[in-house]
């Protein structure tokens, strides 16, 4: 709470309404002008399983959960042991639980937290249509110090389709919950409300919006957790801006549909997770070889095989970098936060279009399925367009002609001047299949050079410098950015001069730029993978030296700020 952040968690068995509580509280905090972040975790059951949310609130933008829990509400304790890793209760935590179901489990009792029992069954009896989670909303709102009006407004925003009698009783239940416990000091009284225009958005929605901004007109996908939300966001919207969502029979079909749509002249993408990418990989190589723009969004989950479908990891990096057979130069981009997902996705679409190649965007479950109150993300102008053959072109057309920037104009079907066959076989500059060494070398060079010499501008990374002569630099990527950034900023405030480099462009790796930033500094690479995939990649490419250190932790638990800080401090002893 020192840094004006409070963290509240809610857990319960399926149907108890933990997620609804989270959504209402998140909206409430937004209504009073603050920021918030909500991650969610659920058991493997389709319905009826346990679910939990962890919310962190602040008066400044926040895109991570704090290490510890300030306030926990247990609607019941069933299945709580599944979340005990994530919901890190400690002796400073305040735990409120509904004692009408079960007693306090030993594993919680021994933590030594401040425990408050409430009997919600008794409360529910008093108000006809009320549900226990409505009382919980009231109790938590009072504990946090949220004004009731902000909660009611949030309720209206959440339950817009429910009937009036139900909403009335729910409001009564929230009011009753609000005054149920002894009045406690507001936790947010000294916070400064923001005057910024803000959004309530999930990472997967952010990806969908970025796709729309980037001009995506065809999405082909097969359902997979945790990426389906992207398609569900786009399905009703894309068709209203002139686009289409195709339901593919499998991921192999999805990727080929994307290539077909893009060949037809429409910016196309798919959204999937690691197992889906595995199935798409052959056709991803086709996008590279045939120089057809294509965007593949991978919302990573724990792997290998079916792995941990509902939880996060950054362990598909190697697959994204090296998954294809043959030499297949392509682009790998990763958003750094929920807000950044909007622009990173828009950028990724532009890169695919401009370079006529495959772009993989690596999000992950934590980034995709978390929701945050963020400052509105203005649309960017990247000026990245597909180079197409003019309708009136008089020159004999060579689809794969070697040009100065190695990007040749693409003929869009319908153009009389550009008849050609897109090829997955190695080919000549005219597109004729060829197995000749000279043609192979020419086209390998073309495909490599367009990606290598492209101007990625400042978008390739976020760079935070301490302002002083830094002793160390932390290198990270993707969703770990939030925790790493806070750790580095705190250490800087504590007097250590440390820089931070977070890559948005993972392939091609900006080796020279990274080397320059890391020069004479202790390099610490932080990531969420068991084997240190990112560390080994940077090392292998020669971007960092052998004395670099690796903090690599497997998912699905979020990297803790305290652990990152501790690691950095130890490294610099």
């Amino acid at each position, binding site marked *: 709470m020192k840094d004006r952040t409070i963290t509240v968690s809610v857990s319960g068995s399926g149907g108890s309404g933990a997620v609804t509580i989270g959504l209402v509280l998140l909206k409430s905090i937004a209504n009073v002008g603050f920021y918030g972040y909500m991650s969610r975790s659920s058991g493997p059951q389709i319905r009826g399983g346990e679910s939990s949310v962890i919310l962190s609130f602040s008066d400044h933008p926040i895109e991570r959960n704090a290490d510890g829990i300030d306030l926990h509400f247990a609607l019941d304790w069933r299945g709580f042991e599944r979340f005990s890793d994530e919901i890190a209760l400690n002796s400073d935590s305040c735990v409120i639980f509904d004692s009408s179901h079960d007693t306090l489990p030993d594993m919680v009792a021994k933590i030594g937290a401040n425990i408050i029992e409430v009997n919600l069954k008794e409360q529910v009896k008093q108000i006809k249509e009320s549900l226990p989670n409505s009382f919980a909303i009231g109790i938590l709102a009072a504990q946090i110090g949220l004004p009731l009006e902000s909660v009611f407004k949030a309720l209206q925003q959440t339950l817009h389709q429910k009937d009036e009698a139900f909403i009335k009783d729910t409001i009564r239940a929230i009011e009753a919950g609000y005054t149920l416990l002894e009045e406690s000091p507001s936790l947010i009284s000294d916070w400064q409300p923001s005057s910024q225009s803000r959004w309530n958005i999930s990472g997967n929605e952010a990806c969908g919006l970025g796709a729309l901004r980037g001009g995506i007109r065809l999405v*082909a996908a097969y359902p997979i957790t945790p990426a389906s939300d992207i398609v569900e966001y786009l399905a009703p919207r894309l*068709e209203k801006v002139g686009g289409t969502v195709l339901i593919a029979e499998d991921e192999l079909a*999805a990727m080929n549909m*994307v290539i077909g749509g893009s060949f*037809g002249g429409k910016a196309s993408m798919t959204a999937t997770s690691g197992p889906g990418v595995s199935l798409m990989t052959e056709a991803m190589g086709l996008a590279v070889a045939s120089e057809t723009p294509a965007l593949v969004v991978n919302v990573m989950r724990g792997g290998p095989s079916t792995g941990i479908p509902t939880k996060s990891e950054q362990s598909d990096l190697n697959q994204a970098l090296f998954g294809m057979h043959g030499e297949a130069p392509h682009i790998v981009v990763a958003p750094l936060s929920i807000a950044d997902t909007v622009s990173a996705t828009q950028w990724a679409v532009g890169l695919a279009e401009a370079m006529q190649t495959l772009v993989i965007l690596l999000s992950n479950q934590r980034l995709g399925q978390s929701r945050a109150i963020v400052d509105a993300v203005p649309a960017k102008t990247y000026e990245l367009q597909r180079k197409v053959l003019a309708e009136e072109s008089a020159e004999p057309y060579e689809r794969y002609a070697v040009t100065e920037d190695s990007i040749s104009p693409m003929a869009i079907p319908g*153009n009389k001047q550009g008849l050609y066959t897109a090829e997955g076989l190695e080919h000549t500059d005219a597109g004729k299949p060829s197995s000749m060494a000279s043609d192979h070398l020419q086209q390998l060079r073309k495909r490599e050079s367009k990606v290598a010499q492209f101007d990625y501008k400042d978008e390739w990374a976020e760079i935070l410098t301490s302002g002083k002569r830094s002793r160390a630099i932390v290198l990270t990527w993707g969703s770990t950015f939030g925790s790493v950034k806070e750790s580095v900023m705190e250490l800087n405030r504590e007097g250590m001069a440390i820089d931070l480099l977070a890559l948005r462009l993972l392939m091609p790796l900006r080796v020279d730029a990274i080397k320059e930033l890391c020069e004479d500094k202790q390099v610490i690479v932080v990531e969420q993978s068991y084997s240190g995939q990112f560390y080994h990649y940077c090392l292998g490419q020669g971007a960092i030296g052998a004395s670099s250190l690796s903090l690599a932790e497997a998912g699905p638990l979020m990297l803790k700020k305290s652990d990152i800080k501790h690691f950095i401090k130890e490294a610099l002893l």
Partner: protein
Amino acid sequence: MRDMIQEAFTAKDYLSDIRPIWCPGCGHFFILRALAQAFAWLKLPNEQIGLISGIGCSSRIPAYINAYGFHGVHGRALALATGLKAARPDMHVVVAGGDGDGYSIGGNHFIHACRRNMDMTYIVMDNEVYGMTKGQPSPTTEPDWESKFAPHGTGIRTFNPLGVALASGASFIARGFAGDPNGLTKLIIEAIEHKGFSLVEIKSPCVTFRPDEKEWSKTMRKMNMVPTDDVLEAAGKIHGSDGLDTGIFYQATLPVFEPHSTKEKTVADFEKEFEV
């Protein structure tokens, strides 16, 4: 006048100058010719044709046709074509490939392309063998055909593409024979004109790995089927056929999947949904 139009569109206008890799005597040459003739008869603008294929001897065909083509990966031509047709409903989408490409590695896409019944034509050049990889048994190879890959034959019954197409929802189902160029051209014309997913399964002898298929010129029955729009009747004809009958087995008007999009909104409208 009519002659002038005929002059303006001949098969030659649709044939590229790339020489096919096929063996002399291969049935595919006749199919290529029939396809070009069908395009000419229909007077399709070259730039409005999208000829999509996968991998195999027959899948080389886009390079030999003067149009927009895509020579993709093995078995996925129908999926790629689905993406093209969804993005560009104005294009005449024709998919071509072999029995291995379409019925084995691409079997799932075959089922779902029939089911979607999008307005496209699928030409399968079925020689009952994998030719490009030098003579392995395919799903349409007889179970007792011996090869290095399957010295005792596969022992697996043959795949019935027409039956699967009917069960899956294709609205035009025909079998043709490479050795009957006129009948074949007519079938392809009717298939392209048909609104919906049209399957033209063409028996095309592989003279190199299946010399026995040369017999087809004697045994195949030319255009002896009469089309029906009755599923049960079509099922009877398809399952009652010994595989040597040609013509349209089934043609019906069925719902065609056509994505409908509007331009009633802008991205800015959707951004408002996020405002708190």
